[in-house]
């Protein structure tokens, strides 16, 4: 096989980049071209395959290292020295470990974390169950959310009788919630 870059020498290095396990991009290089392309010296040439791949294929090596959790943090770049006042974790550590330090971190680093969470989950807004010992307000908010979902479903299947009922229930609950928050 002949080198893709110079077209003269025999290619000794074959790089295959798998895209989604399905497509593959292949690149055949001779030793000289590979060295030139990589700007690396002979000895350290094979020392870090990941580096070779990254400089040739311009891929983000970090993405292939580490586990899933860390990848998400990698997508966001922070230059911030702020530390969580509760556990002392900063963004750098979070990026390294892929984990937040305590519950308070989510509040403390809201600006950095929320867009990230949104990119992972698609949206922000909990729809699941709430703890049984949480405040009454949280519980009624949960009921309200469920009712709204049910209303949307009722409208889609054109069950307007049920939809009207649900609408009234939602209104009533909203009024109650509004009142209690003003108090």
């Amino acid at each position, binding site marked *: 096989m002949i080198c893709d870059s110079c077209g003269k020498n025999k290619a000794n290095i074959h790089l295959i980049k798998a895209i*989604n*396990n*399905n497509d593959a991009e292949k690149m055949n290089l001779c030793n000289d071209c590979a060295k030139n392309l990589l700007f690396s010296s002979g000895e350290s040439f094979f020392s870090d395959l990941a580096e070779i791949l990254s400089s040739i294929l311009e891929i983000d090596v970090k993405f292939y290292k580490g*586990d*899933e*959790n860390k990848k*998400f943090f990698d997508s966001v770049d922070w230059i911030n020295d702020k530390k969580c006042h*509760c*556990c*002392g*974790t900063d963004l750098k550590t979070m990026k390294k*470990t*892929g*984990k*937040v*330090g*305590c*519950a308070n971190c*989510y*509040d403390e680093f809201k600006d950095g*974390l929320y867009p*990230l*969470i949104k990119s*992972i*989950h*698609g*949206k*922000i*807004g*909990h*729809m*699941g*169950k*709430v*703890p*049984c*010992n*949480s405040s009454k307000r*949280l519980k009624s*908010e949960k009921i309200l959310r*469920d009712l709204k*979902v049910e209303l949307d479903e009722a409208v889609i299947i054109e069950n307007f009788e049920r939809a009207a009922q649900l609408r009234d229930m939602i209104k009533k609950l909203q009024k109650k919630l509004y009142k209690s928050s003003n108090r």
Partner: protein
Amino acid sequence: MGKTNLFSTMCKNSDVGRKISKDARSKIILTTRVQLARNLSDHKFGSTSSSQEKNDVLNLIIGVASGIRELSDYKFYTVNKLTKVQRRLLIEKHLMSPEMTSRMQGKGVLVKSCPCNHRKSVSIMINGEDHLRIQCAAPGLNVRESYKEIMKIEKKLEKKLTFAFNSKLGYLTACPVNLGTALRISVIAHLPGLVMSSKITDFINNITNIGCRTVGYFGENSEIVGNLFQISRRATLGRSEEDIVEEMNAICLNIVEEEEKARQTLKANHLVDMEDSVYRSYGVLKYAKMLSYEESLELLSMIELGMELGIVKNVKKFNFSKLVNIIGNSHIMLSMKKDKKLREDEVDFIRANVIREKILKRIR
């Protein structure tokens, strides 16, 4: 008690009509695992807390758990007091996640049922990535039942513990991936049909697009062995628990259908190839004296496929997922009950014997 009995009889009744298909399902979806993560509020998460703080959390949770009647038949193990083989066994049985064995201080696990038992098993991991991970593993496709099982436990714990919660983000977890319901469902699927008909890449792409993650049997970064895949659902925020459960159930039924289709096509179009592969595996299993775990999984996967398609007949009926469990290295080492440590080749020898005994019919 009466309630649960009623529930199980109801389940049985509703399943009567689907008996055959359920059997087929459990041949493809081998195990279902449902996991729920919870953290205590006012306690630092695992990655930042000191050993002392971890011990406090452990003691607090154990204290609460010991007061719960439903958890009275659970066995508690402190991770750093277990032997290496015991820890590996718990991981092999998926009763404990591998990360529990790094920095073991203050980590514990509550396990219901003997690990060798192949029925529904529930485990509660303490001080892993999150303070609490409640997990239920059940054979076959059992998403709904497993979910109900862990919710029962969570409700009991919730009464006495305050979990970290935020109205926007739901239950707070150490890793943002699990935020929201913190509910994770994963199944182990045996997909030799899709692999052999090389439809597997398309299949993985498709289920990745709908938010599923596919990894090998041994978890993250492991190779695919024995055509076994671990498929789990991502996105836990913005959906209710019930929706996640129903979605995963539907996805699994879809997987079963795809695999069935692939198998039938293979049988119709490539029967000789299939027979060749199956009988080669049969030959090796019959005569090999030493078998590694990985090789055994590959071979058994083919035999299982051969049996399902009616290719190979002189084989005893065996439960694939059960067999996979008992031929793991740690299981063999522990079941021998020898004081001295077994060498690797000795384990391979015992494994080959165990498999022969389980699958070969005796020749009179």
